């Protein structure tokens, strides 16, 4: 160790510095993940000795129609949780940023408000809104649209979209505020230049605003897509996967199988699959954003 090194060169002692953090990370993240992977290879009821199952729990995810549907439902929710809020958020943020409205802080707070309310509370409130004698049907009735009223969460066609709309309502604020922050950093010279070149408001949006907030869009998409794929509380409170199985999602199946049916191996396999799927999708979103930036 007598050889002098230039400062900043990697040294082995550095591992020592990250050891405390790594131990905690390993104990609370790596070990549980490894354990979950291990459990997913067994048939285990949580009480007696588990029996080796190999990859059969994973094969069941592909073979079991109900489980396959659960993953499809999660993808449908992505449209409601991520894509719709992104479209609405871009529009809202562009308007708020452009119009320099008075009381911007107030609007920002209002739009962001759903995010500060616990999801369980949100779910209970929306359950009332969707009830057969709830707010939504009351509104439709007042408009003379009685033929459209129904028990929204008990309707086979509308239960999943109804759950999705709650997600849109919930995530739009977050996306808007993120995009607003990004847009406020765009130098006004860019807009002036665009205007001199004869760009209208729409052209300006696509030529200046949209490319400038690429990074924020990636962050917003990552957060909301993950939220969509791991949806649990909303489904647990509003529909418990019903009617029939039309709103079942993977996270709910994990809970249901582990604690309801005592099929811990199967639950772990779904959890691991979901983790891999989330990881892959987030990775792709960030790849897309990085490539755009360079």
């Amino acid at each position: 160790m007598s050889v002098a090194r230039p400062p900043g060169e990697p040294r082995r002692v550095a591992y020592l510095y990250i050891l405390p953090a790594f131990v905690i990370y390993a104990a609370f993240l790596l070990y549980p993940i490894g354990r979950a992977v291990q459990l997913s290879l067994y048939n285990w009821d949580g009480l007696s000795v588990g029996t080796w199952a190999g990859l059969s729990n994973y094969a069941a995810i592909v073979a079991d129609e109900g489980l396959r549907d659960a993953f499809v439902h999660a993808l449908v929710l992505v449209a409601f949780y991520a894509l719709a809020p992104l479209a609405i958020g871009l529009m809202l943020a562009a308007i708020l940023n452009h119009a320099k409205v008075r009381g911007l802080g107030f609007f920002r707070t209002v739009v962001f408000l759903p995010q500060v309310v616990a999801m369980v509370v949100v779910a209970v409130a929306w359950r009332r809104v969707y009830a057969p004698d709830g707010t939504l049907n009351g509104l439709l009735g007042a408009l003379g649209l009685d033929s459209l009223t129904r028990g929204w969460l008990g309707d086979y066609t509308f239960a999943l979209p109804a759950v999705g709309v709650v997600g849109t309502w919930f995530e739009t604020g977050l996306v808007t505020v993120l995009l607003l922050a990004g847009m406020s950093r765009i130098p006004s010279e860019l807009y002036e230049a665009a205007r001199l070149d004869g760009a209208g408001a729409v052209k300006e949006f696509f030529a200046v605003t949209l490319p400038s907030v690429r990074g924020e869009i990636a962050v917003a998409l990552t957060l909301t897509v993950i939220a969509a794929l791991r949806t649990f509380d909303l489904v647990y409170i509003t529909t418990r996967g019903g009617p029939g199985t039309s709103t079942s999602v993977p996270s709910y199946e994990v809970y249901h199988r582990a604690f309801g049916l005592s099929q811990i191996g199967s639950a772990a396999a779904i959890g691991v699959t979901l983790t891999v799927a989330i990881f892959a999708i987030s990775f792709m979103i960030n790849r897309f954003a990085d490539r755009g930036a360079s």
Partner: protein
Amino acid sequence: MIPPTPRRRAVLAATAVALAATACAPGSSAPPPAASSAAPSAVRTDAAALGNVTLTIWDQEVRGGQAAQMKQLNAAFEAKYPNIKLKRVSRSFDDLNTTLRLALSGNEPPDVVEANNGRSSMGAFVKAGQLRPLNAYAEAYGWKKRYPDSVLRYSSYSADGKVFGEGNLYGLPQVGEVVGIFYNAAKLTSLGLQPPKTWEEFQAALAKAKGAGEIPMQLGNLDKWPAIHVFGTVQGRNVPAAQIGTLAFGRKGASWNTPDNTKAAQQLVDWVDKGYFNKGFNGQGYDPAWQAFSKGQGVFLIGGTWLMADMEKVLGKNLGFILPPGATPDAPPVATGGTGLPFAITAKSPNPDAAAAYIDFITNADAMKVLTTTGNLPVADTDQQSVPAGAQQDVFKAFGTATKNDGLVPYLDYATPTFADTLGAALQDLLAKKATPQEFLATLEKDYKAFAESNG
């Protein structure tokens, strides 16, 4: 980023190997103890002479009258046996269910636990050898004389946990419950009707209520399971009770694909077609439904006795309760019903004698009186309790009649570990006309057959 060096790869690989090496089959670290069934001679019932003992008890009696009776009985027990100290841990039903599993697989489980009757709870614990068979105590304390068979079978399993409803006794419940028909007496009177005495009369009443513009029957089926109780009630009119028992206990030898079951499913669909249920019932929550009924929306509600106290607060004398009537007024009663969670003794408890004395104390004749005065429905001696006329008396009478005539049939969701879900979802499909009665029954048959075959 520093590119991965061979050394770092080696570390990663070593970590993976270490993980694999320490990995043995889950659950193998704590082998289940052999369930020791003590010989009757070894049983001691002289609780006062057992020396100083501390009993740890896990229960779920956290709400209103439940909490009150438990507190009162525990205090009385400690006063009578100063040598036995009680350490009570009480949690809500859901919390107890999710934590009990871990607690029982530990080395020092609680002495007495309230375990849910079904296969995924009590059945799984029996299979893992975690609960002590109570046959010897039942004999010593005379429990089999005090409790009707149709009640005791809900906490009976074969020693290997495979057969539900017979074999060893593993627990004793305090309270009973039965699913029947609640009615709004004021509405019946204004329709010119009496509480129905036969199933025909009941259906005629539904039709008359519909004609008069009332909601004949309230149902909130958003939570998936509530329609199970409605279907169970209809099934009890159409299918022999013994067959329902075989199906519901998940034993071999019965089938869902029978003309009787088809008739029951069809009757339910007919009710939907005739508009006997409230609009949008599949999207209505369970609680909002019975709350709407107690506010005067709906003439009938098929539900369990557990709803009585809350609904009586609002409806008062206008609330009535009957067992589901049969083909004739004097037909023997058949009703879905069961017990509250039974109290069981863990296999590893070092003080089974004291634990049994405790269970006997909270379920004896005096305890049943305490249960009555705290607003619960005692599981034994029900018809000997004096309660004021009204819905409470209706409920006591109904449960007494059902148990005395062995007229309780088990909850259908007991059948297999997955049946609550299968049946709940299938019923939503049936009621929304996404499935025909035949398709509905085929779904149930598949789950039932698969389990009954594999269970041997």
